[in-house]
């Protein structure tokens, strides 16, 4: 309901022509009833505030931060450097003129900054370009292909070397070290033509096994007597073994096979280990057999069977490194035997 307290709202809508027809009728009826308010219908609602009437705020420039602050430079330095580096916009150029009205001074400063430009020394050149470049033999074969071919060639070469080395190692089975010992004793001049790798190594002089030594082991398997004697006799005279070696070899009946070349790895595997077994295990066994034969005689079928059994045991332990030959007379009786190991050969005639 329109009354004197709210009629202005209806009146404003009426003047702005946004009033509904019903409200317009109500408003006009209300104004007829209140004629003193009819003059409000002539009010000017087009009045509005313009921008010009707003007060100007004159401190904007003072509030703005100059880009030079970011560089810790003065405005003029910043503008001069920027002019040189990337050029100035119109406003910036005008600002520069304002900051330095003296054109001569401005040009002087500009040239000072221009002189700070580094100039490349064209005399400095990298002289080793060829080292950096990569080359190909032809356009179809690149470095990768060459590398692959080289790799294959190396593999083939190594395989070939291993193949031939294996062949030689197979031939080298036997008492190789003994052969070198033999050369060392009897033919020192041959050392010069031997394999240099072998020559460079310190030779382990292995004393050949004699009948006496075997008997000694048979009588004193644990070496107790010998140790006892050595403790009583502190000073031991060392004989020159090389002088007696040929004689001892002849007496013991040990023969040494000859061979030509040694492969160190194969030598260790195929020679030294069996030899160690022969020296430390098989030798004792052989000595035991030999000692038994000495006591009871070789013509005993029982002892010959024992000897054959011992050889079989040795062959089992050393992968067939010990051989045995028996010699018979016309009547079929055993007249002698020959037991040969990797570094030992014993021949014996029956009593």
């Amino acid at each position, binding site marked *: 309901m329109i009354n004197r307290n709210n009629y202005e709202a209806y009146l404003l809508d009426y003047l702005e022509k946004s009033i509904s027809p019903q409200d317009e009728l109500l408003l006009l009826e209300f104004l007829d009833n209140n004629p003193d308010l009819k003059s409000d219908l002539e009010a000017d609602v087009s009045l509005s505030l313009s921008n010009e009437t707003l007060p100007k705020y004159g401190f904007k420039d003072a509030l703005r931060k100059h880009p030079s602050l*970011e*560089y*810790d*430079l003065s405005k003029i*330095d*910043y503008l001069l*450097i*920027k002019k*040189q*580096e990337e050029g100035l916009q119109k406003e910036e150029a005008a600002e520069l003129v304002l900051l330095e009205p003296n054109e001569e001074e401005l040009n002087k400063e500009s040239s*000072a*900054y221009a*002189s*700070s*430009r*580094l*100039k*490349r*020394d064209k*005399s*400095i*050149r*990298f002289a*080793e*370009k060829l*080292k*950096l*470049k*990569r080359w*190909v033999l032809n356009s179809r074969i*690149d*470095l990768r292909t060459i590398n692959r071919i080289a790799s294959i060639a190396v593999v083939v070469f190594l395989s070939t070397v291993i193949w031939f080395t294996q062949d030689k190692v197979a031939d080298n089975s036997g008492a190789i070290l003994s052969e070198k010992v033999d050369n060392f004793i009897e033919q020192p001049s041959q050392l010069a033509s031997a394999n240099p790798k072998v020559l460079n190594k310190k030779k382990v002089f292995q004393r050949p096994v004699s009948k006496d030594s075997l008997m000694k082991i048979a009588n004193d398997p644990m070496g107790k007597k010998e140790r006892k004697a050595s403790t009583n006799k502190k000073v031991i005279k060392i004989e020159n073994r090389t002088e007696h070696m040929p004689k001892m070899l002849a007496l013991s009946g040990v023969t040494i096979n000859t061979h030509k070349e040694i492969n160190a790895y194969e030598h260790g595997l195929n020679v030294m280990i069996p030899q160690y077994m022969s020296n430390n295990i098989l030798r004792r066994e052989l000595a035991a057999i030999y000692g038994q034969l000495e006591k009871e005689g070789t013509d005993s079928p029982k002892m010959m069977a024992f000897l054959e059994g011992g050889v079989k045991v040795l062959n089992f332990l050393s992968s067939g490194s010990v051989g045995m030959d028996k010699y018979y007379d016309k009547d079929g009786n055993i007249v002698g035997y020959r037991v040969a190991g990797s570094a030992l050969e014993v021949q014996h005639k029956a009593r």
Partner: protein
Amino acid sequence: MTLKEFNQAVDLYSDGIYHFVLKNIKDEDKAKDIVQDTFEKLWKKHTEVNYQKVKSYLFSTAYHTLIDLTRREKKQARWDEVDDNRHSEMDGYSDLNEVLHKAVALLPEDQRMVVMMRDYEGYSYKEIGEIAHLTESQVKVYIFRARKFLKDYIGKIEVLV
């Protein structure tokens, strides 16, 4: 990048990289080592590197190798400490250039590097930022400050003369 492009890169950019490195460390042997090392690294990845960006890759590699080296040695070479094995300027240099290079040697490492890349190779702020792993605004700040220092240094020397 093909092998041919790699060799082209050697022809085109090895001088610039060598120049850039030599001007920073002033040691010819080390500079050569860095150049060789840089191209060796490029060769290892040449199939992955786009030829259009090879210059940037090379300078970036050389720059970081240089940074590692100088920081490892914990010292900055100074022109007045140059010995016989070290690089010396050619006779053709003017007095102003000598003074300028003395001043450059006195700049902080970052400022010196970016100014050299800017002046010797003409790189933009953005390119320098990519090479040196800096923002564009950082590069700009370094260059502006370096310019101010160089200009002041030259001015002082001129006054003294």
